[in-house]
């Protein structure tokens, strides 16, 4: 188990280094960083001095090492457009994105799993068939369209829920702001998290359903029924637990995707999160933000995958033996 975890950690580290190389390349070679930083009236001498001061004349490997060690301390340089350290900008935006992502992941799991179990167990029922066809809509409509649809229905027509922003937020700790503690904050969360989680919900539901159908055909489920175990035990203790390994894999990847690619939803709902910041960075060629964003998403994916791998060990005892 420890050997396995160490091996995975080393792999994760290599992935992070490769991503860092990409981010560095982008920072260093896509356009001249000095040209982006200074105005037109800066003289050539001043530019050269700045270049020297920023260490841009050092050998490339030295620059890369400096980039990595700074990144490891959350120092991603200064944003070109805002003239602020990127890490400060991120710190302001991250709570919004994380809250949105976790709420929508929670929504996807809390709705998707029961629906999947039901559809897997009652394959022929009308409700299952309805779940399937409705979920097909969820999977085939683009996110922005669903967002606009929801806004039109619940904000414009019914006027129940706000159409943009986070509502009132409360400061928790030194830099975290949360929308969970105010009514308007919670109301503002509903539409964007449903929009963002709908696709994942569909995916999880269909996955659980397929896995359940697979598992209830196995001999050990038949044997459990032949021993007279009540349906509750057969379906949840035996069947559901055996469907979890693939479900956790996909859920982990999807959670990463939710956090990293909330961009469209954030734009539609004008959500003050990372996605919006990233879009502005792209429009203004703000390379430090882009390369930091790249590093951050890679880190999220690697971390989630690592957790998923460790979770396997808790779920499946067959993985625990035979490993050093």
């Amino acid at each position, binding site marked *: 188990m420890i050997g396995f975890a160490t091996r995975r950690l080393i792999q994760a580290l290599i992935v992070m280094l490769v991503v860092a190389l990409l981010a560095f390349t982008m920072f260093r070679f896509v356009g001249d960083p000095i040209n982006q930083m200074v105005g037109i009236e800066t003289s050539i001498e001043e530019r050269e001095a700045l270049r020297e001061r920023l260490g841009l004349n050092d050998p490339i490997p030295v620059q890369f090492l400096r980039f990595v060690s700074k990144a490891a301390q959350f120092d991603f340089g200064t944003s070109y457009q805002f003239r602020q350290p990127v890490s400060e900008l991120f710190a302001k935006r991250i709570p919004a994105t994380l809250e949105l992502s976790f709420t929508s992941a929670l929504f996807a799991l809390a709705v998707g799993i029961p629906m999947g179990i039901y559809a897997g167990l009652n394959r022929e029922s009308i409700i299952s068939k309805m779940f399937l066809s409705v979920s097909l809509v969820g999977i085939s409509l683009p996110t922005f369209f669903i967002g606009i649809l929801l806004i039109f229905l619940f904000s414009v027509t019914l006027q129940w829920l706000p159409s943009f922003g986070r509502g009132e937020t409360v400061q928790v700790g030194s830099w975290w702001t949360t929308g969970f503690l105010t009514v308007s904050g919670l109301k503002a969360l509903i539409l964007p998290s449903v929009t963002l989680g709908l696709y994942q919900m569909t995916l999880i539901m269909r996955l659980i359903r397929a896995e359940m159908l697979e598992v209830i055909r*196995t*001999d*050990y489920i038949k044997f459990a*029924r032949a*021993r*007279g175990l009540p349906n509750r035990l057969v379906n949840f203790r035996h069947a559901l637990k*055996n469907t979890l390994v693939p479900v956790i894999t996909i859920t982990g990847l999807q959670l990463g995707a939710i956090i990293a690619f909330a961009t469209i939803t954030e734009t539609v709902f004008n959500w003050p999160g990372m996605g919006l910041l990233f879009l502005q960075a792209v429009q203004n060629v703000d390379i430090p933000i882009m390369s930091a964003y790249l590093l951050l998403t890679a880190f999220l994916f690697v971390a989630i995958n690592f957790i998923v791998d460790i979770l396997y060990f808790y779920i499946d*005892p*067959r993985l625990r033996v035979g490993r050093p």
Partner: protein
Amino acid sequence: MNVLDIKHLTVEFPARKSVFVAVNNVNMQVEAGKILGVVGESGAGKSTVGNAVIGLLQEPGHIAAGEVFLHGNRIDNLPYKEKRLLRGRKIGMIFQDPLTSLDPLQTVESQLVETIRTHLPLSSKDAQRRAVELIDAVGIPNAGERIKQYPHQFSGGMRQRVVIALALCAEPELVIADEPTTALDVSIQAQILELMKKLCEERNVAMLVITHDMGVIADITDHVAVMYQGDLVEYGETTQVLGAPEHPYTQSLISAVPRPDVKVERFPVVNYIEKAGTPQKQIDISTHWLGKSRDYEQVTGPLVQIRDLDMRFEVRGSIFPSQRKYFQAVKKVGFDIEQGETFGLVGESGSGKSTIARLITGLYHPTGGSILFGKTELTSLTNRKDVLAMRRQMQMIFQDPYSSLNARMRVRDIIGEPIKFHKLASSNSEVRQIVDDLLDHVGLGAQAGTKFPHEFSGGQRQRISIARALATRPRFLICDEPTSALDVSIQAQILNLLKDLQEELGLTMLFISHDLAVIRQMCNRIGVMRNGELCEVSDCDQLFENPQHPYTRELLDLMPSMELLSRANLETA
């Protein structure tokens, strides 16, 4: 009084246009402490009887007529909840494959305890104590410790013991065992059968054993019911039915069972069972392409000589050689296969017999030793052209006829592929002609070529495999458990076909099987393998009449006795 009483049971499976009658008007009884065997081939409806009794018929199957009584109380029409409480409490069930019938994610203890507590009003402490007692009773040593383990930490035989313990959790009056030993080795099979018989007598349980294996029936049952296509064709005391079968189906079934005590020239194939696969159009081998121009170098002496063959697999890899772990699958094995003979390799699972087949064909590369085929050393062949030339001379027939044929290819293309690959024919029309002849010769008929593999039964697929193997005009054929997935009557046909082909084409064969009885019927000489080592090589008759190695004697002792079986229809050699 009878524990189980089945009266006029009919089970139907409605299909889109017709109704399939899986069990038709069947009557059976089992007394306490007695074992009733239900025997038949696949599709006979024997498992359906068991599922109908316990109330686990696969949808849309249902009991269309008849009654099932347990201790005189009718149980087939009970509401769902009461039926569920019968399962496990009054009726226990044992399944075929111990590797898949336990939940891999739960400890043995938690599966036992949940079952006990479902049926008996015990505290979890008492239930745990009872679980340990049960595990001890089914003969698992160290019950207190082993019970905390997960199913994958038990061997196949031990898992079947756990399954039996689970079936006995709440002291049921009736136990239904559906093919309880089919997935096990002979030595384990003998132990499990003994355990079942013992438990049946000690606990006065009535047992319904469903099996296709006449040996199991002969070994443990008191009464036997023979089923054929949903009908009960014969029913009576085991000694009576097996010794003097009355119904023609029972007679043909019994005579098709290969037995270790008698060697027969050909298996009697009784047309009652399935349209016997006689060749539709015999081809004259002496003039046909198949028999002609086999331009192989002449060999004097043995065709295959194996010396000191070693094969080990890396179980755990590591960059440090000292940390690596190996599994020695084949250890210093050496034997010869004479031209034109059938050499048998017999052993239990994991004994390394299939590994040897793969080493000879070059699917694995040995870690040591030599394989001499004719005058060529196979282990040192590197040139692709030489390798191909060797592969053309040896072909293999695999165990599972369902996975060894490409489902997306037509039969004609499957058989024609090796001919085209080795460029053995000059034109496509010649290939076509050869394939048609081969299909005729293995008893399928040329029109089978346009179909896909899924349109054939297991036995017919194995015929396709044989035709494919013959398509390169090999002189050495390796059969790896060619009939172990087939019913006995089909097995008899396939074995006859192999015997005929060997005679006509002068093939040399390596025949691998776990079934000593089949080995006896097919082979001239036999090697017995255990844990990768060759224990004994001797002539067929000598091995059975005068075994030298203790392990061989053990294997022979463990075989279910077939002495009960009628000897009518057998032409002894």
